């Protein structure tokens, strides 16, 4: 087994396109990041930035067509996932890597009892017989705070927060090494959101699971992650340790995100939002994707794509002006 600080998951130059009609949409463009055992990386960005696509391509569950992985390598514990056969991937999915989805209302099969849905995964990845699997599933339900006699109930009998707990139980049932959490609390009410977030955090610590957390909420990032990657128009535009990124954000987009937050601190009467809207993914700018909205835009930004620069150890930023005074 790998040591605690060894790189556990490595994503290199991931590239995914969607084809719709004759148009190609560059959904993910040369995305690279690393994750250490037991750690959490947050992918932050707005709707359509390509966060979910990144997660789904790690599991290789993107619908093809229209999605197509053009290139890149994904390595989990030294095993290259991208070169595995579809058969081998079946073992990885749910066994080694599990996923929690955004909308608990639609993520559960409405016609199956929640118990059966947890059991389904258990039978696939373990040598359990049916009884053992059921016992384990009941254990998982209790673990996420659902009485085990609700094992035989259907999803419609659960509230949104409860459903999300079921989804979490389902994901963690097979002790995965890596958890992909796709906006796990966005669809929930504030107080429920806090409960679910705490639950994920506790279970993750208990089993030393690594996690990729996808969110648009900087508050969730601050509370949950170790590393942060800011995603914009399919690219990682800033990548750093959480503390570093929150104290010293560098990319104008990241700065804009912070400026857009109606903060809980006193004082400001007007927000400093980012102008304009995210770019049309079928028609991305030639240069920096953020250039049309950037307050510091220069000619160079429009002409060519800036490279990722390491501005301080472990802090990367895709901006010409990064590290310089602005």
């Amino acid at each position, binding site marked *: 087994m790998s040591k605690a600080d060894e790189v556990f998951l490595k994503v290199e130059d991931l590239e995914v396109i969607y084809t719709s009609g004759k148009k190609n949409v560059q959904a993910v463009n040369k995305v690279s990041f690393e994750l250490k055992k037991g750690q959490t990386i947050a992918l932050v960005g707005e709707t359509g930035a390509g966060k979910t696509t990144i997660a789904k391509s790690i599991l290789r569950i993107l619908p093809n067509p229209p999605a197509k992985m053009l290139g890149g390598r994904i390595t989990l514990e030294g095993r290259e996932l991208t070169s595995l056969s579809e058969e081998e991937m079946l073992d990885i999915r749910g066994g080694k890597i599990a996923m929690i989805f955004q909308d608990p209302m639609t993520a559960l099969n409405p016609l199956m009892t929640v118990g059966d849905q947890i059991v389904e995964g258990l039978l696939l990845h373990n040598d359990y017989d049916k009884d053992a699997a059921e016992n384990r599933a009941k254990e998982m339900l209790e673990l996420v705070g659902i009485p085990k006699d609700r094992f035989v109930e259907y999803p419609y009998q659960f509230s949104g927060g409860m459903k999300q707990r079921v989804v979490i139980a389902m994901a963690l049932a097979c002790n995965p090494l890596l958890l992909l959490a796709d906006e796990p609390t966005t669809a929930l009410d504030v107080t*429920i959101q806090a409960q679910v977030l705490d639950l994920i955090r506790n279970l993750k610590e208990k089993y030393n699971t690594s996690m990729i957390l996808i969110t*648009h909420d900087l508050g969730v990032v*601050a509370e949950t992650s170790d590393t942060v990657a800011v995603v914009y128009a399919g690219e990682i535009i800033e990548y750093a340790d959480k503390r570093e990124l929150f*104290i010293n954000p560098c990319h104008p987009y990241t700065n804009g995100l912070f400026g857009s937050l*109606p903060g*809980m601190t006193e004082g400001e009467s007007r927000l400093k939002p980012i102008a304009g809207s995210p770019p049309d993914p079928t028609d991305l700018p030639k240069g920096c994707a953020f250039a049309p909205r950037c307050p510091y835009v220069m000619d160079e930004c429009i002409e060519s794509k800036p490279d990722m620069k390491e501005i301080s150890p472990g802090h990367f930023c895709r901006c010409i002006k990064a590290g310089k005074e602005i």
Partner: protein
Amino acid sequence: MPLLEVKNLKKYFKVASGINHAVDDISFSVEKGETLGVVGESGCGKSTLGRTIIHLQEATDGNVILNGEDITHVHGKKLKEVREKMQIIFQDPYSSLNPRIRIEGTIEEPLRHSGKFKSKAELKEETNRLMELVGIDERLRNAYPHELDGGRRQRVGIARALALNPEFIVCDEPVSALDVSIQAQVLNLLMDLQDSTKVSYMFVTHDLSVVKHISDNICVMYLGQLVEKASTEELFRNTLHPYTKALLSAIPSVDINNPMKRLELKGEITSPIDPGPGCRFAARCPFATSKCKEPQKLREISKGHFVSCCRIEEIN
């Protein structure tokens, strides 16, 4: 005299399993040019409250008073006048615009129905003014809603609500469906419009940080009832009701140096259908005792700060 006064407003719905107390005995007032924030989780009746005030739904009981005039049960021509003074901005910019009507048509429609604009040229000039006011490019005039992104659609919704120069606008979660950067643009727009037109808002939301940013006064609702009401400053400085405290502490904080200590709630929101007489929050409240089973009264703790909890003296 406040612009709008709501007195003991009630809105009940008959449903299969009983009576849904969606809005139960709510009172507040809004001054001209001010914003009242209404906060609560889904199902607490905050949207119904807004819709009942502006007559999209008939009130079960209580009064709505606009400029000193009781408008709770107006009809016909009077209702038309009232609606011109009170407007609404919806949560979902996708379903709140008719997909078959062009942007221009949507903004122009209230103007036409008001009968104040006689000629086509006048109408066009006014729609132009509105589009400019909310920041929609002139070239989008002939576009259909599906051609616009969420932020622009929401601007169209705002233009439609502003068309008749209302005095009061219910903003029903207008930014919760939008991305953070767009959300900030829309919030700024709403605040700028308030500065220039002195319109009053009732801002309905589940997001305490948004409500703190935009409101002068805040009402916190739980299962159809008011649990706490105070000026924004007072509410955040001196939070009293356990539910408000839980709401506040549940928001994930961006401040990585001072992580918030969380007041965890048990269970989930219960049903507003045929609720018992006691405190509706008691089932989830960490401080609940047998006293909470009795009916709770909204008490004025300090000037303008109302709380509906019998135990605040003990727990604070």
